[in-house]
């Protein structure tokens, strides 16, 4: 068991450009085990690019990324202990919910063991979908689909969970419900969690720390600490005030 002070992710002087067009410019930050860090930035600022680089899905130009002390770029593969939840659920439409979660084991190993099957059932229960295991994606709502995607990521027991605006496109009620559930799961599992969002309200409610990014070429504009204990209250006057400040800041950035 690692102590909570373990560095789950370290990004150092990360630089990325597409065809000489700089996207990320010297990004440096750390995420500790058991910590929830929101990366907040205006649309199109390179948040997703940053997340895809950390997931080793796309290459970068300069810098250093390590996950639990291990250099990510040294291996060509996606690091085993990183889980990714994308903005879209990305479910296989021809598989039911259970088999979509099962996909992780089918892709990872040659055989799915009895034990793996139990892990799948537990994950479906954890995300509240045990009654919908047999349902196909077209029969599920947007929120439910994202729950399946979350379960598919959780069965891998990731020590670093990356979420790329996972609740965008869902209605407010479902969003708040899922925020709380994900917070619950995260506090049970205690992994490092990086949550990318463009919504200051969401970031303020969720995060231990918010890393505020600028417009392109992206640099870190501010790092805000939120030591407020959980469960937190939504939309407190202080949170509203801060949210306004951040929105003003984004408006100045983009106009």
């Amino acid at each position, binding site marked *: 068991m690692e102590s909570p002070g373990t560095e789950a992710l370290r990004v150092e002087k990360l630089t990325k450009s597409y065809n000489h067009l700089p996207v990320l410019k010297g990004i440096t930050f750390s995420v500790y085990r058991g910590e929830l860090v929101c990366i907040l930035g205006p649309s199109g600022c390179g948040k997703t690019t940053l997340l895809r680089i950390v997931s080793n899905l796309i290459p970068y130009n300069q810098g250093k990324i390590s996950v639990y002390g291990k250099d990510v770029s040294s291996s060509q593969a996606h690091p085993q202990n990183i889980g990714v939840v994308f903005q879209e659920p990305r479910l296989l439409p021809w598989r039911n919910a259970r088999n979509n979660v099962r996909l992780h084991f089918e*892709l990872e190993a040659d055989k799915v063991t009895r034990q793996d099957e139990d892990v799948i059932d537990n994950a479906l229960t954890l995300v509240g979908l045990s009654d919908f295991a047999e349902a196909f994606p*077209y029969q599920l709502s947007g929120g439910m689909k994202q729950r399946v995607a979350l379960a598919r990521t959780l069965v891998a027991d990731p020590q670093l969970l990356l979420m790329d605006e996972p609740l965008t496109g869902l209605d407010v009620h479902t969003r708040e419900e899922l925020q709380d559930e994900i917070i619950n799961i995260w506090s049970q599992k205690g992994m490092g969690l990086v949550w990318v969002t463009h919504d200051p309200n969401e970031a303020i409610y969720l995060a231990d720390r918010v890393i505020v990014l600028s417009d392109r070429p992206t640099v870190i504009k501010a790092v805000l600490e939120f030591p407020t204990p959980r469960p937190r209250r939504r939309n407190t006057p202080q949170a509203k005030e801060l949210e306004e400040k951040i929105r003003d800041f984004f408006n100045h950035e983009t106009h």
Partner: protein
Amino acid sequence: MVKRAVPVIVSIAAFLGIWWAVAVYNDSVLMPTPWETISSFFKLIFAPTGWQHVMITAYRVIAGTLLGAAAGILLGLATHYNRIAETIVKAVIFPVLQSIPVLCWTLIFVLWFGLNDMTPILTVVVAVAPYFIINVWEGMGELDTNLIEMAHTHTESRMKMLRKIIMPMLYPYLFAATRSSFMTAWKKIIPAEIFGATSGMGYMLAISFEGYRINNVFGWTIAFALIIIAFDYGVFSYTDRKFMRKWKAQEQKL
């Protein structure tokens, strides 16, 4: 349901009526009536060897379609994964298959292999392979890159990616290819069996033709038509509605 069935029944009845009128008006041995054709069809099919010829042709169609599918899928995928294979398939194999009439292949195969199963089966292979090549190309061009990226966060194995993600995404395209192939196979096998076999429905058609047995020519012709209709409206239509729905749900959404 009833509303849709009525015009269909009326059209078919009209077709049979006109056929019957023409046959009766001409009163010629060259034009059997629908009734004579149908009774000849049943006589042929239920004759002791009749079924055997149907089964032999069906075997050749299925074997040829399966081999053609395997070849077409492999060639189609190869163009995607290998530069040299891409050049060879796109510059040579595909144009050759597309431009040479299937009947010419049949004649060449007769010269090479003589009168046996080989000629009709290979004829079907060259006739159907292009359908699979084209559909695999199209399918590979339409792959959902989001799903592939997602799978990359779970595995590095190219083989697993192909088996679990890419091939299933190609199923609708392979289904379309199989459907068109099957129709084509049943048509192209007739000349292949006329020129290159000593058994099968095409061979029986040739014998009836040479013996000037018009009723039998019509009977075997109807047999081919009924098989094609049974498969296209029955098997393929049913599979399409029953199983391809989940894949279609994906297409509509994206």
